[in-house]
């Protein structure tokens, strides 16, 4: 019983520090990522950015029972053939992401390839990436990639992802 109480307090302290302090440890990160109450309760619409660049993006709040200050962001640059989905913690910044179409080099010098996923760690932040075998959809199908991204991130999306607006790059260059 005493053991259970201590665990409960530790969990409480862990969540409080993650909600307010902004300095996360590995245990807190793993707890956040494995939390299955993370959810998005709205439709997702791709929009232009403030610069009207070739890319489109979205930003939505991720709700959760512990009320993590968490957001999901998407970035699609069809001209450059790149797609990125990100989970951003308000205090820590980017903590989890998937990149398609861009290469990555890990701190040990290894090139990871054009499909890679970043997971935050205490030691290296998001500098280390790996090849996610669970992502099989192609960059040109952002809704399919999103579905696979949500599955591994334990994220429930209760809504639709609408198609991105048409590309208008020809007149830019």
């Amino acid at each position, binding site marked *: 019983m005493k053991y259970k109480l201590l665990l409960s307090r530790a969990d409480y302290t862990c969540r409080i520090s993650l909600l*307010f302090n902004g300095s996360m440890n590995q245990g807190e990160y793993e707890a956040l990522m494995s939390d299955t109450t993370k959810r998005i309760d709205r439709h997702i619409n791709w929009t232009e*950015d403030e610069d009207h660049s070739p*890319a489109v993006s979205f930003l939505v709040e991720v709700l959760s029972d512990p009320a993590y*200050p968490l957001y999901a962001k998407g970035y699609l640059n069809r001209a450059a053939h790149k797609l990125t989905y990100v989970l951003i913690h308000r*205090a820590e910044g980017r903590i989890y992401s998937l*990149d398609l179409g861009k290469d*990555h080099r890990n701190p040990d010098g290894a090139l990871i390839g054009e499909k890679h996923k970043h997971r935050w760690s205490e030691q290296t932040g998001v500098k280390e990436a790996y090849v996610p075998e669970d992502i099989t959809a192609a960059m040109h199908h952002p809704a399919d990639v999103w579905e696979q991204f949500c599955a591994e991130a334990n994220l429930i999306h209760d809504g639709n992802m609408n198609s991105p607006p048409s590309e208008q790059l020809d007149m830019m260059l």
Partner: protein
Amino acid sequence: MNPTPCDYIAENMGELFDCSPLGGYTRIRTPYLYPDGDVIDLFLSQIDGGSSTLTDLGETLGWLRTQTVSERKTDRQRHLIEDVCLTHGVELYRGMLMLRVKNLDDMAEAISRLSQAALRVSDLWFTFRNQAAASINDEVEEFLADREIGFERGERLVGRSGRTWRVDFHTRTTEKSALINVLSTGSRPSARRLAEHTLATWHDLSNLRLGPESLRFVSLFDDELNIWAPEDFMLVEDVSEIAYWSRKDEFVELLTS
């Protein structure tokens, strides 16, 4: 047969640069990295009448956007980007870093310049709020200094209850002095707690609103994220004046009128 850009890169720039056709462009994969280790790619448009465009297709600013919940660049970040572009002779157009390449012999220099610009712009990541070096209060401080509004930051004041309260800024202009509390957070539950804390602060310090040298109380909301509920504003509107960080001119007007 004329050499292609890829031929030129293979012959003159060594194996560090990888070149391949992609859509209507030639993609040049550089040996340079964004701060998280992602590789910087550049894109060359088709040669057209002797001139072509080398660009990052907006990837550098796009990379920055995916590091933060912020959807807008700050004035300071814009200024730093302009400074980088000036240094390296690069144009920022619709979020893309770009420059013109008149002929293939200019290619090496153009790739070097644009890569450097992309590297330096991506380093703006270190100025983001979630980095230790910066916060919205730093932005407010910089803004007040730019507008030549005198201020003290983090002043401690004793309230009527005897409790000591720390206010974010105490400003002084020729017309009026003001106390400012900045309300900035990333989650709705803490937004409510922050509004309640601000209400308590203003209520306990309300004696400072009296007399000929009374202070104006300003609750400055960071409305970059749409997380504030109408009730949050209602909590503080009777005890302070409300300002929004997205409406900086109105904020200044409040402090100087």
